[in-house]
């Protein structure tokens, strides 16, 4: 399992995904080695719930750009992986790469050891930017095309992503498998002090609207900011914006400019347990993404029983069925977003119905055991022929 992030090194959705997948593959009897970047105060080698985690020295010196750092990191990753493959000698090894970030090491190992390569594409450069405009974008885009063509199978988390991978990366549909991301609902049990967490942000008579995600353009942070005053005109609410990213200072500036300071909390990165408590405490979880290959946050909210208001885009359209398992709004449309939030806050019957349907859908489609089995089937396919 080749991944640039793995808990506790969590940058985006790849870390929790690879963690859950690996742990559940082990439960199915697979032998899983995760090869990932080092992280302060974590051991070079440890066994986490049966998963062997190897952390190598990712390149530490300055580099001309992020892409150069990634390739140098891949050089080191391959050296680490080579030792592991050697120690597993004679056993069928499958390579599983995650995104362009591990393309170099994956393709290198594939050819040197003649091993089958399965790749999960979590997001594409083309999709993220709405096109390929700079030399840098083009470079990443080409690396993704290369990785796709070198892979026996390409796993995507949604039909939306499968379309993108086929259209923008030229991967034939026969090679693509759609396996959704999963959620483990038990992470929401045994959380103490949910009320205490809630009261940090909102009074009992105030509604709490939650946004969890990276503060970047494609997560729709600006749309949310434009919708907030519209919501506040009708309802007494507090907004909690949890996450970090390059838009953080823009956000904070706009909040003071629009005099929303007491109403919108930009918390930065929060502890996992606090975030989970917030999902339990919130009245609505809002996901105004402009580009969303899947939308794990939607699953988290659903598993916690928190109604979701989400852009009708990407993977979110497949997870949220309008007025059944959540509320869909037009993407990039503050009026529509405000409408959706108000709808979720105002109708008790709707909320009850949503909670029931959400719970059922999570049970039926998004359990990690199901997803790990589907992944294992892809591995078996990649071994044959």
């Amino acid at each position, binding site marked *: 399992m080749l991944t640039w992030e793995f808990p506790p090194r969590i940058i985006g959705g790849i870390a929790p995904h690879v963690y859950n997948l690996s742990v559940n593959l082990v439960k199915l009897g697979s032998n899983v080695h995760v090869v990932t970047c080092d992280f302060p105060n974590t051991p070079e080698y440890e066994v986490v719930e049966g998963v062997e985690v190897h952390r190598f020295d990712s390149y530490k010196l*300055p580099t001309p750009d992020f892409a150069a750092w990634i390739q140098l990191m891949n050089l080191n990753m391959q050296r680490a992986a080579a030792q592991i493959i050697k120690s597993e000698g004679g056993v069928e090894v499958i390579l599983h790469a995650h995104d362009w970030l591990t393309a170099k090491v994956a393709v290198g190992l594939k050819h040197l050891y003649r091993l089958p390569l399965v790749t999960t594409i979590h997001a594409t450069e083309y999709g993220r930017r709405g096109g390929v405009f700079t030399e840098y974008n083009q470079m990443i885009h080409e690396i993704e095309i290369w990785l796709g063509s070198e892979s026996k199978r390409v796993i995507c988390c949604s039909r939306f992503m499968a379309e993108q991978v086929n259209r923008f990366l030229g991967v034939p549909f026969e090679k693509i498998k759609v396996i959704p991301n999963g959620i483990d609902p038990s992470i929401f049990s045994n959380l103490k002090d949910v009320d205490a967490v809630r009261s940090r942000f909102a009074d009992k008579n105030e509604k709490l609207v939650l946004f969890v995600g990276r503060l970047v353009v494609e997560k729709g942070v600006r749309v949310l900011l434009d919708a907030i005053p519209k919501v506040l005109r009708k309802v007494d609410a507090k907004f909690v914006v949890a996450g970090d990213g390059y838009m953080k200072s823009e956000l904070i500036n706009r909040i003071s400019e629009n005099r929303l300071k007491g109403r919108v909390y930009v918390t930065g990165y929060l502890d996992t347990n606090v975030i989970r408590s917030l999902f339990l405490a919130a009245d609505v979880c809002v996901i105004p993404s402009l580009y969303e290959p899947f939308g794990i946050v939607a699953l988290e909210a659903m598993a916690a029983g928190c109604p979701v208001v989400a852009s009708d885009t990407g993977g979110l359209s497949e997870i949220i069925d309008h007025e059944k398992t959540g509320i869909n709004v037009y993407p990039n449309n503050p009026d529509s977003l405000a409408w959706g939030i108000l709808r979720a806050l105002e109708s008790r019957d709707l909320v009850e119905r949503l909670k029931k349907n959400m719970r059922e859908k999570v049970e039926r489609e998004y359990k990690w055991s199901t997803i790990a089995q589907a992944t294992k089937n892809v591995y078996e396919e990649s071994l044959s022929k």
Partner: protein
Amino acid sequence: MGLKVVILSWEYPPHVVGEMAWYVRELARRLKERGVEVYVLTYAPLDERVDVDEGVIVKRVKPPISVTTNIVVWSLLFTTRLQAVVADLIYHLGAVDLVDAHEWITVDAALALKDRFEVPFVYTIHSLEKHRSANSAAPLNIAIESIEELGCKEADRVIVNSEWMKSEVAAKINSVANKISVVRPYTEAWLNDVLEVYRSETL
């Protein structure tokens, strides 16, 4: 003799950037004359192709992508393809005796091959980044220097073309001083020097 040697060099005619292209070509030709089975793996400015150049098998390889933002990315993706082609060659031949990687650009491939096939790795240095570039503090230069350092540390032997270069390399990383050999290019002694290094690593 029967030595099978893979030479990695991004420069080889017609891809001529400096003197190195001619050096490698002449070295390969003379090695062949001495009975060494030589495979040169180099960069393909146009199509990928395999040629036989005076008995030397030359495989030209393209990087897998066409656009990169700097030479560090370019070279590391080029070497990914390069190592794959050499791996195929080794699977076909059964084994090779040595990889002679010229310049920092090819170090990554030599390392990967050494890790996989345990084939000895000779690193031939024609120049150092600190001499090529006056600006050694920029991230690009630091990155290239770190690859040079990696090559020096991980190679079984280092070949340089002058005593001066030997002292320059040893000054940079003094732990490698004992494995540096000076060869005398285009002289009578040149091939003897090189073959001595090759043989000492393949016994």
